[in-house]
């Protein structure tokens, strides 16, 4: 079983991201349970969402306290929330940021990081700072757990308004190309 925790701020779409990834993983034949954290739903407030997947049926319907992977949709959040709380050794960190691992403190338990200038891409392509589709593509690029194609299937099932589906798919495509993946020494591995 593999456990993923999304961190974001209300309005960035962390909960929807977990749903879209759930759809993409089911598309690839996996068993999934995803669940949002429960708090007051306010724009800008820190939120979290949880997703576990496995090759076999999952029974526990609970929050995740020891994730294998952290996906953070907001560049300012690591300064205010301990996004690494309970993270397993050898985990993967996917972060929305313009910075490099040298500029950010990477915990020792993290063995791979994927950084993506999600705000930059979001403002250019979507015209507003909604980073969920972008960070899903960054997750796909960093971990290889899911294909961009399956993610697009997941996105296609969301009831976007107007041309938002095409824009989100374009933003995801950009993010998949532009995400920088680093090893523990901060060396870019692609």
């Amino acid at each position, binding site marked *: 079983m593999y456990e993923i925790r999304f961190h974001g701020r209300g309005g960035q779409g962390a909960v929807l991201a977990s749903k879209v990834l*759930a*759809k993409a993983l*089911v598309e690839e034949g996996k068993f999934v349970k*995803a669940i949002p954290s*429960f708090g007051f739903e306010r724009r800008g407030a820190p939120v979290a969402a949880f997703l576990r997947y496995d090759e076999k049926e999952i029974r*526990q*319907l*609970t929050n995740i306290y020891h994730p294998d992977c952290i996906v953070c949709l907001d560049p300012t959040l690591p300064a205010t929330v301990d996004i690494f709380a309970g993270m397993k050794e050898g985990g993967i960190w996917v972060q929305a940021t313009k910075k490099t691992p040298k500029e950010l403190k990477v915990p020792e338990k993290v063995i791979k990081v994927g950084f993506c200038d999600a705000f930059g891409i979001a403002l250019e392509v979507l015209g507003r700072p909604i980073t969920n589709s972008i960070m899903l593509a960054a997750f796909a690029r960093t971990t290889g757990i899911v294909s961009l194609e399956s993610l697009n299937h997941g996105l296609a*099932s969301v009831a976007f308004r107007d041309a938002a589906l095409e824009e989100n798919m374009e933003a995801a495509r950009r993010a998949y190309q532009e995400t920088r993946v680093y090893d523990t020494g901060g060396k870019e591995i692609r």
Partner: protein
Amino acid sequence: MSKTIVCDGNEAAAWGVARSRPDMVAVYPITPQSSLAEYISQFVADGIIQADLMDVEGEHSVLSVLQGACLAGARTFTASCGQGLAFMFEPYFRTPPLRLPIVMSLVTRDGITPQCVWGGQQDAMTVKEVGWIQMYCENVQEVMDTIIMAYKIAENRDVMLPVNVCHDGNYLSYGVEKAEIPDQEDVDAFLGEKNTNWHVALDPERPMGVDPLTGGAGGAGPSMFVRYRKGLCKGMQNALGVISEVHGEWALKFGRSYAPLVEEYRLDDAEYAIVTIGSMSGAGKDAVDAAREAGEKVGLIKIKTFRPFPLRALLDAVSKVKALGVVDRSVSFGWNRGPVYQEILSALYHLTERIPALSFIGGLAGADITIAPFGRVIEMTGKALKGNVPDETVWLNEND
């Protein structure tokens, strides 16, 4: 053709409603049921549900409208929880003795005060004596399937009672999984023709007195009242068999089987067992597996149907073990124990041998019950085998 989707429990419930083809739906939104009300509204707007949707000013009107519709022969649906259910209580109380087969999702929520919009089973447990059938679901697919089965149970001529399909607020309202939407034709064949008002109707062709004034000292009044009461009791007892039959038919037709009344998990060679209800059960089973690997002979008993109380099925299960740990997600304030625990104690009286039973309460106000606290439940219940039984309820969550 059936269709696979990935959805949360509230959407699954709405799909179950859609496939059941209600004639009239009335809903008033309340967290964590709101998105279920929104899915229903969307489905009606999109023509997926071809029903009259009544937007009314509150839950009292919701159920009053549906009572009228049901008496006029309609298949009906609503959903509520918590304070919404509290506001609905007056018509809610009248629905079972009127023998109206209304189906209602209870997206269970803890009771205020203090203020709380999160999950817990306090609402459902508070109304367990009113006469509605209560079935509690464990996962998203079971929510969808149980809604459809609920119509077949409610509308059975030997039952004719309203059903609450309970799914835990937060965990099962927003929890997302893969689910299969059954084919419409298959569901139509499964449910058959509806007849919701053959016995009691608002119909100019069949004028009859509905809900007569009874009671008072002496005369026929109180006896007539008792006839209604005994009829309700009989309908409830009949429901036990019907619930089992309907679950059996469902498994044959759709290939998904659920324990209709009480599920026994790894119980056959168990020395002791934990008892769960609702969405906590998955983590409970995982905890049982972990304890089994460590050599503990423990099993799990899951309550699906809580009203009517499945006495025989529960006795079959508990008679296999020598100690029980019951986990509740609500509080019986009169006993300072869990309500499921109190009911289990009543059932245990029917055994010839007395066995120890422990009360655990956790998961209130949206709190999580993970595998770890279940580990504690298992450990303490195992110790009860050796006579170590705590006098008081054990509160499971950290800081409780």
